[in-house]
C-alpha cells in the first residue's frame, strides 16, 4: 500500500485514540469511547498488515495466540483481582516495546551500524536504548507489582541497605551503557563488544524494575500502577522513534501523559511527593507512631449497630482495601439498598487512594451494581460530614485517620482524609485491633462516638443485612 495512505490511516487511528480517551472522561460516554479507541487500534493493525515483506503466517499465528490469551484473561479475571490484571497487561506492553527495540538492534547490528535512511545511527541507537530500558523496567516492575498485588510476593515494602544508591547505580549504569552504545560505531567498538554491552543493558534495566518496586508496598501501590502505566506508554513512544512511526509516538505519548497525571493525582491525594513514595519505603518498619492516643476502643455488637442504623436518616459508607479483601461489596450494596428502603439517605465516600489501584473502590462498587450517583468524591462529601448521622468505615484505615488533619508529628500529617470523625456516630468494621498499612494508630477508633465491629467485613455486613430482613 502507498506509504502516504498508510500514514493517513495512522492519523485517523490517532484521532480515534484521542476521541476515545476524551470519552473515557465521562461515565455516560466511557464505554463508547473505549470502543472507538479499540476500533482505532484495529485500523492501525490492519493497515500495518499491508506493509511489504511481512511474514504473514507467523503474524497471523501471533495475533491469534495473543488475542485468545488476552480475551480469556479479561473474561475470567475476578473483579477483585483487577489491579494485578491491569499491572500484568502493563508489563506485557512494556515487554513488547523492549523486544521491538531489541529486534531493531539486531537489524542495525546486522547492517554494521549504518543506520536507517536519513537518520543518524547515533539517534537510532539512542532511541533503541530508551525503548529497551523503559520497556525492561516496565516489564520487571509490573511483574513484581502483579506478584505483590496478588499476594504471591509479600506486599510489604522491602528496603535494602543503600537502596537508593543501588537504584541510582542501576539507572546510571543502564543509561550510561545506552550512551556508550550510541557513540560506539564512532569510537570504533567492535560489533561483538557492542552486542555484549547491549545484553548487559537489557539485564540492568530488568533488575532496575525489580529494585525500583521493591521498596514500595501496600497503600502506595496505586501510585506505582499509574507510574508503570505511564512508562509502558513512553516505551511505546520510544519504540515509535526507533521505527520512525508516528502512530506509536502519538498513542504512546498520550498514554505516557495520562499515566503521569494519574501518578501525580495519587501523590497529591496522599500529600506526598513522588520521590517520597518511590524511595521512602513507607510502612516498611512501622516504627513511626506519632502522638500517643488516650482512651480505649469500644467494641459494638451487630444488634446495637442495627438499632442505630435503623433510626439514622443519613449514612455514609467509607470503603477501603479491607472491603476488597473480604469481597464484601455485594453485601455492602444490599445493606445500602435496605437502608434506602428504610428511608435513609445513603452515600458512598470514595478516597482517591483507597484500595490498590486508582479508583479501585469504584470498580468494586460498580461490580455490585451500586449506582455511580451514590459514589461521592472526598472533596464533595467532607463538607457534609458534620450533618451525617452514621459513618460506616469498612476496612479503611489511614484514609479516615484524623491524625492526618491535627497531629503534626504523624507521618501522614497533611494527607487529605475523609472526615469520618465529624459524623455523629462511627462504626468501624475491622478484622482486629492492629494498625493500618502505615503502622499508625488511628485516633478515630478511640473516639467516644466510635464503635468497633470486629470480624470479617462480609460477615459483619451480612449480619446487619439479616437484621434488617428479619425486622420486616
Amino acid at each position: 500500500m502507498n506509504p502516504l495512505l498508510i500514514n493517513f490511516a495512522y492519523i485517523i487511528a490517532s484521532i480515534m485514540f484521542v476521541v476515545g480517551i476524551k470519552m473515557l472522561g465521562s461515565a455516560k460516554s466511557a464505554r463508547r469511547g473505549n470502543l472507538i479507541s479499540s476500533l482505532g487500534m484495529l485500523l492501525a493493525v490492519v493497515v500495518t498488515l499491508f506493509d511489504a515483506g511481512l511474514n504473514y503466517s507467523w503474524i497471523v499465528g501471533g495475533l491469534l495466540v495473543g488475542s485468545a490469551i488476552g480475551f480469556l484473561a479479561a473474561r475470567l479475571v475476578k473483579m477483585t483481582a483487577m489491579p494485578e490484571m491491569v499491572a500484568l497487561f502493563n508489563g506485557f506492553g512494556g515487554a513488547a516495546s523492549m523486544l521491538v527495540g531489541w529486534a531493531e538492534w539486531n537489524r542495525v547490528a546486522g547492517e554494521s551500524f549504518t543506520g536507517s535512511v536519513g537518520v543518524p545511527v547515533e539517534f537510532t541507537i539512542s532511541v533503541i536504548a530508551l525503548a529497551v530500558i523503559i520497556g525492561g523496567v516496565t516489564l520487571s516492575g509490573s511483574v513484581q507489582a502483579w506478584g505483590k498485588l496478588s499476594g504471591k510476593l509479600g506486599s510489604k515494602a522491602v528496603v535494602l541497605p543503600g537502596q537508593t544508591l543501588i537504584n541510582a547505580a542501576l539507572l546510571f549504569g543502564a543509561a550510561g551503557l545506552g550512551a556508550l552504545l550510541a557513540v560506539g560505531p564512532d569510537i570504533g567498538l567492535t560489533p561483538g563488544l557492542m552486542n555484549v554491552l547491549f545484553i548487559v543493558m537489557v539485564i540492568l534495566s530488568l533488575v532496575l524494575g525489580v529494585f525500583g518496586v521493591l521498596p514500595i508496598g501496600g497503600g502506595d501501590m496505586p501510585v506505582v500502577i499509574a507510574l508503570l502505566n505511564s512508562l509502558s506508554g513512553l516505551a511505546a513512544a520510544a519504540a515509535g522513534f526507533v521505527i520512525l512511526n508516528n502512530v506509536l509516538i502519538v498513542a504512546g505519548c498520550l498514554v505516557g501523559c495520562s499515566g503521569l497525571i494519574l501518578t501525580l493525582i495519587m501523590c497529591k491525594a496522599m500529600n506526598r511527593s513522588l520521590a517520597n513514595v518511590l524511595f521512602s519505603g513507607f510502612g516498611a518498619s512501622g516504627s513511626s507512631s506519632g502522638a500517643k492516643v488516650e482512651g480505649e476502643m469500644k467494641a459494638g455488637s451487630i444488634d446495637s449497630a442495627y438499632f442505630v442504623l435503623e433510626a439514622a436518616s443519613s449514612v455514609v459508607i467509607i470503603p477501603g482495601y479491607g472491603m476488597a479483601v473480604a469481597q464484601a461489596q455485594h453485601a455492602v450494596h444490599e445493606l445500602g439498598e435496605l437502608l434506602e428502603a428504610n428511608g435513609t439517605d445513603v452515600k458512598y465516600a470514595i478516597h482517591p487512594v483507597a484500595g490498590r489501584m486508582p479508583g479501585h473502590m469504584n470498580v468494586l462498587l460498580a461490580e455490585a451494581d451500586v449506582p455511580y450517583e451514590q459514589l461521592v468524591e472526598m472533596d464533595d462529601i467532607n463538607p457534609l460530614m458534620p450533618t451525617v448521622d452514621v459513618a460506616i468505615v469498612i476496612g479503611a484505615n489511614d484514609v479516615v485517620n484524623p491524625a492526618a488533619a491535627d497531629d503534626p508529628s504523624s507521618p501522614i500529617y497533611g494527607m487529605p482524609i475523609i472526615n469520618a470523625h465529624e459524623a455523629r456516630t462511627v462504626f468501624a468494621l475491622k478484622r482486629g485491633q492492629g494498625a493500618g498499612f502505615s503502622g499508625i494508630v488511628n485516633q478515630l477508633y478511640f473516639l467516644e462516638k466510635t464503635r468497633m465491629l470486629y470480624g470479617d467485613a462480609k460477615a459483619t455486613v451480612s449480619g446487619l443485612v439479616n437484621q434488617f430482613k428479619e425486622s420486616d
Partner: protein
Amino acid sequence: MDLIQLLFIFTLAAFLGYELIKRVPSQLHTPLMSGSNAISGITIVGAILAVRVGAGGFDLILGVLALVLATINVVGGYFVTDRMLAMFRDKEGR
C-alpha cells in the same frame, strides 16, 4: 519521516494528553488507566513490522514474542476495560 517532525508530534501529543486527562473524575480513574493501558499496546504495530520475511532464528523469536505480548495487552486491555465500564451504570439505566 523527518526527525524534527516526529519530535514536534511528540510534544503536541504530550500537551494534548495533559489537557485530556486532567479533568477526569476520580471515579473513572481505573477504566481510564486500563483503557489507556490498552492503547499503549500500539507497540503491536512495531511488533508486526518486526516479523519480516527473511528474519529467522532469534530475530523471528523476538518479533513473534513481541507480537504475542502486545496482542495480549491490546485485546485483554480493551475487553477488561469494557467489562468494567459495563458495570458502571446509573439508576435509570438498570
